[in-house]
């Protein structure tokens, strides 16, 4: 009987972690998805996340206010998104390489600022977990949704940033599928000449999606340093940004697909973490490898390749066909 309970606790723990750990992937991937749908591949997400995670952390460290931290991260992320937009859309640079350059830049800047402004690893407190507690007037006890067995622990006890991340999925789907903006984004990514011939400004649409993508990558980074880990160190993300880009491919460029991919990925990661805690016989080094192997396998699957925006990585110039 006791063993069953422990197994149950482990499964619940994995699921809770899985949902929680998906948060940075969700922000970063959804943002990247918009950019890619409009035809721009931004591999600088890794660098933007690092810069966002540092700035977010630093502002919370100085002010104690997580909202300010996330705002700062969003702002800085948008700036870096703007830089990427200028390089990719206006200068029409090779998008894969410029993304790597931006990531290097972001790694350097975040590490440099960390060393000079903070110096050592400290902790901050992010948002506390929401408990969804209600108390009725007059009655003494409070009822918390998070204390509902099973469901409570998995679904109802995450931080507000996590809830926002998941809420963004249907919002993104709505924007993409049911608004004039979404229509323009899709058209620009699939046939920019056609969109241009109808008066849609291809470059403006791409600027906006890339800047928004940067903003969300900044928040993603901050969610890592402020909410999930509560610390910052050099190269905190260690590849999460690149995985987030890969998740867009894996998710077939759709918000729900991206969410499925993020959940799958983070659940595997969380299983690996729990595996270490439980001293399972798998060497930790091998377990850490799993998410990366999984990503390669996911990339190799032939599903949904047809959904790739036809103009992805191709800069647009009027008159050049």
């Amino acid at each position, binding site marked *: 009987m006791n063993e069953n309970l422990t197994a149950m606790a482990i499964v619940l723990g994995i699921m809770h972690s899985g949902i929680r750990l998906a948060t940075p992937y969700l922000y970063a991937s959804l943002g990247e998805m918009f950019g890619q749908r409009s035809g721009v591949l931004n591999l600088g997400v890794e660098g933007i996340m690092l810069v966002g995670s540092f700035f977010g952390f630093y502002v919370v460290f100085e002010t104690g206010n997580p909202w300010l931290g996330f705002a700062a991260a969003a702002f800085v992320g948008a700036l870096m998104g703007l830089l990427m937009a200028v390089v990719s859309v206006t200068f029409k*640079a090779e998008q894969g390489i410029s993304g790597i350059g931006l990531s290097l830049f972001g790694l350097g800047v975040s590490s440099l600022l960390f060393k000079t402004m903070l110096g050592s690893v400290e902790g901050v407190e992010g948002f506390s977990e929401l408990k969804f507690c209600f108390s009725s007037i007059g009655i003494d006890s409070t009822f918390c949704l998070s204390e509902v067995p099973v469901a409570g622990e998995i679904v109802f006890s995450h931080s507000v940033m996590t809830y926002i991340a998941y809420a963004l999925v249907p919002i993104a789907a709505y924007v993409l599928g049911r608004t004039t903006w979404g229509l323009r984004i899709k058209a620009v990514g699939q046939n920019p000449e056609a969109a241009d011939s109808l008066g849609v400004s291809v470059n403006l649409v791409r600027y906006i999606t890339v800047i928004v993508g940067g903003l969300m990558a900044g928040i993603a980074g901050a969610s890592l340093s402020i909410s999930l880990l509560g610390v910052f160190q050099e190269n905190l993300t260690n590849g999460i940004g690149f995985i987030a880009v890969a998740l867009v491919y894996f998710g077939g460029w759709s918000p729900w697909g991206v969410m499925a991919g993020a959940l799958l990925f983070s659940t595997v990661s969380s299983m690996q973490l729990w595996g270490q805690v439980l001293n399972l016989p798998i060497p930790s080094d091998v377990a850490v490898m799993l998410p990366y192997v999984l990503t*390669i396998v996911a990339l190799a699957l032939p599903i949904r390749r047809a959904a790739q925006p036809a103009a992805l990585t191709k800069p647009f110039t009027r008159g050049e066909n």
Partner: protein
Amino acid sequence: MRRIKFYRLLDGLVPFIAVAAALAVGAIILLLQDTNPLTAYEAMFKGAFTNKNGLADTLVKATPLLLVALGVAIAFRGGVINIGAEGQLIMGALLTTYLGVELGDSLPGPLVILVCLLGGALMGGAWAALPGYLKAKMGVNEILSTIMMNQIAIQIGFFLLRGPMIDPAELAAGTGIPHSARLPNTTDLPRFTDIAGWLGLSKSAEEMGLSGFAAEVYGLLVEPTRLHSGLIIAAILAVLVYIFLWRTTIGYRIRAVGQNQAASRYAGINVSRYIILSMTLGGVFAGLAGSIEILGLHHRMFEPTAVSAGYGFSGIVVALFGFLHPLTIIPSALLFAGLLVGGDKMQRAVQVPQVLITVILGLVVLFVVSADILVRRRATRRVSVDEPSPPGPDPGADTGTGPGAGPGTGTTAEAIS
């Protein structure tokens, strides 16, 4: 005519302008840190280029940079973007270490060195062949797959170094630091000072009556420094790569596939095969770099990311800066090696963290690829039939007589899945 010459000049200057611009941004950052940029940059330059140990460090760093960049350049010319040099280098270093430790005592030194070098190179090639295959047959984006392979290689490295390949001395001492045993001395690549000894030169610079910079250079080549013959191997290979790409049929095909997959198919070239080959060659050079780092410099394997030291990424910068052409990559490698070594010296001199160099590297990449627009705009000018012929080939073209063009948007865009 003058306009053409002007653009050709501009073309050639672009990387330098990019570096200057990146250094300017770096200067701004230094100013924000209350540091005098001139002092900092002076410390950098002096540290890297004016004394024999600095020069030795620079040349020692230039070796893996040159090799990685050669591999990256071949891959780019074949239309594949190899970001996996870090992992390929690590895998090559791991196999070299294993072979060196196992065989070093039982076989003659030069033979072991040869086996290790070949093994490291092939291992790196194998590590790159998988992403190459995935790209060729399944259209998988090679940037993403090679980045993943990097991470996997790092983990494999840790696993082996904590387990089967750990230094027995560590086990005995119970400290558990993840590094291998020291390779037998017979496997050390000869250093320049060793070669000088064989040639009969053993006097020091002082004894020779030299002073100033000449003394430093003499000391570099003759006195005991870290400078090892891996540099010679790398330089020879650079020349061979040039011959390979522009003077052989295989090189022709690699370049054709990199420029235009469709036309290559129509010409009967097996595009898949050459994509895989380009990627594999990229890995071969990175693996060789790892091998040489072990045999020439470290003589044991330790923390994987410390061995690869970011060469997988800085090698890309070196390749881009060097016009993706093996001969111009040589000075490019020297420059960036100097930057890396200088960064360390600068940190000691003005207490600005070395990671500033990473910032500068990232900016150089951004600026170089942004400036590409100038190159491409000019390069698509049509020649009117009645114009007098411009002198010589267009430098934006992929002919072997001038510096080659970077992967154009069209072709590398095709190369990205």
